[in-house]
């Protein structure tokens, strides 16, 4: 009789070990597929910086003013194959600190380009014009970001302000709510 440690595993014993493994893989795959089909993705969003400034410029020489910084919009989409988008909606026109003058928010515009990352179903950074009435798209994507949702996709967004002699003097401000969501 050979020592036990020299015995080859019997087919029945092998099955006892591999059955749970195969079952586990099937269950996990089932959950992932179910999750994917239901489009229940987790989206996280970050903006950097979260504040930009348009300096004073002569409208004759600078018909368009570039913002003080490029805003990086970063999205992380978890596993899934659903479509999602990043939109912006202004709280109103740019409002003077004296509360008496405004600059139309539609004079704030942006161009956007890919900064880093990838999306399983493709991503597209989009230029646009700020609006206080309807959300405007900054980024459209599909699927997960990075490797199986562990990673992100980001756009560099260049904001500009249409310059105009009609603007009254003062300090203006407004907030732009940026939302990443499934449609």
């Amino acid at each position, binding site marked *: *009789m050979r*020592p*036990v*440690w020299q*015995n080859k595993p019997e087919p029945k014993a092998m099955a*006892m*070990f591999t059955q*749970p*493994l195969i*079952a*586990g893989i099937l*269950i*996990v795959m089932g*959950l*992932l597929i*179910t*999750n994917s089909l*239901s489009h*229940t*993705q*987790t989206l*996280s*969003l970050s*903006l950097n910086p979260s*504040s*930009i*400034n*348009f300096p*004073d410029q*002569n*409208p004759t020489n600078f018909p368009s*003013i570039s913002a003080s910084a490029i*805003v990086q919009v970063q999205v992380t989409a978890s*596993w899934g194959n659903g479509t999602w988008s990043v939109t*912006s909606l202004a709280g109103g026109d*740019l409002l003077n600190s*004296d509360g*008496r*003058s405004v*600059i139309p928010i539609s004079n*704030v515009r942006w161009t956007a380009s890919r900064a880093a990352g990838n999306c399983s179903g493709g991503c597209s950074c989009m230029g646009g014009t700020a609006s206080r009435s309807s959300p405007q798209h900054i980024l459209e994507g599909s699927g997960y970001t990075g490797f199986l949702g562990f990673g992100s996709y980001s756009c560099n967004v260049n904001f500009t*302000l249409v310059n*105009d*002699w009609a*603007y*009254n*003097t*003062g*300090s*203006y*401000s*407004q*907030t*732009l*709510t*940026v*939302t*990443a*969501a*499934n449609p």
Partner: protein
Amino acid sequence: MKRRDQVKTKSTGMMIQSSPHKSGLPVTNKLGKEDVMKNNWKALLICTAVVALVLLMGTSTFAATQTLTINATVAARAELTLAPTTINFADASPATSPNITANTPVTVTANVRTAKASTATLMALAGTDLTSGTDTIPITAVTWTASALPFIAGTMSHTSAQSGATFSAGSGSYSGTYTFTLANSWSYNTGSYVATVTYTLTAP
């Protein structure tokens, strides 16, 4: 009791001990496999529960929001453009041409940025009368008309600045033309007369 070997499984960390049959000791292999299988199933259930929990967590939040603050600064400034910057009154008989129109109208562009409640001003002040050597023609003989508001007509002076426009309050960009006229007179001595007028646009 002396045992010859030990096998440590990676998956469970459970120690499986075995002995050769010839030693007469109990065989523990069969029992070890059952334990491993039970532990594998336990591990499978735990992993499944964790994966399910992670995936289900994704259903609770699938939107994210951030805010971007946009600031803009607008300072007071004024920009005035006149074109051309030189005009001429040709010689003409006072009998037939009591008023001489300048050779060209002057286009004026005024850009102002000021506070909403402030009003910009455009003033014209001649440096001297029209002068040719020791001879002079009163600068008040020069008048102008304007194409449209906010620019207004007026009479030149070298003693007090004359208003060239009546702006509404706040900022704006304006464009128009001035047409200059010289009142002709037999009393003017011959010569080439010159005067300079300074226009000042102010955005308070």
